[in-house]
């Protein structure tokens, strides 16, 4: 495919949870589109479902290569250096296997009762204090933060600190590069402290198990251990915390879908999958991959050495795979979405996130009947300058329960 002048990307500013209509045109007419991000070299933007899965799953596309290149990105700095997302198999496999077990569906199911308890306490707290409440601060954020803290063994009492650091880590333009560096250093030092505590005395938590793997199996370096633990803490709450209010907002703007869930809570697991497909969480694009070889995609040939950025938001709306893709349908049973990625880097926390999102919806439906926005649409304040879309604040109200 001839290299034309790259288009600046993202094409438009993210607006609430709307999907850029340009993607539909690209899927049809320009499935490999030359784009330039605010930082880094030009890349191919891949918008079709099957192509996105190929780029994420085919070993001829590399993440490790991006470390040596000026990878396309939304912000001046690269992410956390030495993260699991910067490795290809077999190096990636070595790290991933150490943590994979703790995140299998079977292990995650064991956390469900405790997650339900935390969610119920948060919802009951909202009910007791009375409406309006902020769905973000009072429910969506503390739920996954508490769960990941308990799983990892990070003291919940420190959350104000690591919240700020983690926010900076995931930001694009909200913080200066210096602030981001300082916050990264602070978070790494904090984690090093927790790791030292586990060396001094054994702890029965995931962080303890990781320290044990490092000290007894020598399968990961000290830096890898620290970065992995930090990644779990950061990835383990920001995403889910954004998706809970995104899901609620989407259901409130699709009242017939919400009514279906209220009538039959058994639909919740399917609804979580459909909402994962429908909600454009990523602000435009994922982590770039580099072709190690010439690879033919349905949209054209990518040459060895070229950068490719996939657009899961577009893939999840691909009319070649989904009937009426722009319609939210909690009963939909079509191909699985790529909202958790695909291939070796497929979200480690996917089963945990699914469980948390199911529990969150179930709890809100059950404990806060008639949940709705407390004010007009404009009362929802959306985040800006960060990599994930979602409300910063979402004032909600509900029907008074009998005992309130």
């Amino acid at each position, binding site marked *: 495919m001839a290299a034309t002048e790259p288009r600046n990307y993202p094409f438009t500013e993210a607006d609430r949870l709307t999907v850029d209509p340009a993607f539909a045109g690209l899927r049809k007419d320009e499935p490999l589109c030359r784009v330039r991000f605010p930082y880094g070299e030009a890349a191919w933007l891949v918008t079709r479902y099957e192509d996105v*899965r190929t780029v994420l799953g085919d*070993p001829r596309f590399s993440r490790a290569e991006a470390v040596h290149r000026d990878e396309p990105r939304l912000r001046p700095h690269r992410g956390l250096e030495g993260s699991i997302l910067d490795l290809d*198999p*077999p190096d990636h*496999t070595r790290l991933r296997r150490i943590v*994979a*077990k703790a995140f*299998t569906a079977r292990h995650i199911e064991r956390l469900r009762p405790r997650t339900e308890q935390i969610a119920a306490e948060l919802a009951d707290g909202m009910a007791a204090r009375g409406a309006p409440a902020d769905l973000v601060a009072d429910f969506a954020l503390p739920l996954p933060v508490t769960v990941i803290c308990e799983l990892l063994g990070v003291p919940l009492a420190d959350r104000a600190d690591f919240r700020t650091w983690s926010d900076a880590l995931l930001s694009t333009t909200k913080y200066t590069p210096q602030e981001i560096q300082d916050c990264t250093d602070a978070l790494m030092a904090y984690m090093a402290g927790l790791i030292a505590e586990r060396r001094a005395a054994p702890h029965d938590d995931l962080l303890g198990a990781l320290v044990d793997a490092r000290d007894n199996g020598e399968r990961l370096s000290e830096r890898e251990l620290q970065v992995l633990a930090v990644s779990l803490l950061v990835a383990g709450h920001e995403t889910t915390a954004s998706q809970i209010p995104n899901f609620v907002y989407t259901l409130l703007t699709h009242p017939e879908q919400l009514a279906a869930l209220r009538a039959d809570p058994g639909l919740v697991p399917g609804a979580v999958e459909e909402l994962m497909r429908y909600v454009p969480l990523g602000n435009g694009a994922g982590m770039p991959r580099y072709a190690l070889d010439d690879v033919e995609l349905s949209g054209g040939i990518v040459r060895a050495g070229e950068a490719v950025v996939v657009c899961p938001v577009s893939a999840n709306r691909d009319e070649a795979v989904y009937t009426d893709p722009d319609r939210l349908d909690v009963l939909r049973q079509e191909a699985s979405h790529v909202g958790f990625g695909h291939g*070796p*880097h497929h979200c480690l926390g996917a089963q945990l996130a699914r469980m948390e999102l199911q529990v969150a919806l179930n709890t809100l439906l059950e404990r806060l009947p008639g949940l709705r926005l407390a004010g007009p649409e404009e009362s929802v304040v959306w985040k800006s300058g960060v990599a994930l879309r979602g409300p910063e604040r979402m004032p909600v109200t509900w029907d008074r329960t009998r005992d309130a």
Partner: protein
Amino acid sequence: MTWQIEVDRNTCIGTGSCAGIAPEHFELRDRKSCPRHPTAEPDELLVDAAESCPVEAITIRDATSGELIAPEP
């Protein structure tokens, strides 16, 4: 020694993790995993794939004794 490789396609959710870890042993067909061969020489990559599957859809057994090699229960 020979290992027997099985994927429970009803359980598989098609993440593509196994095909990424061990492309010589697994491929996705109709968006779900399939072993390329029903048996193979012992290979640590098979254990890696089975241990990393998020829904534990892959089982590796000793082809002769039927003994479970991965995933760990």
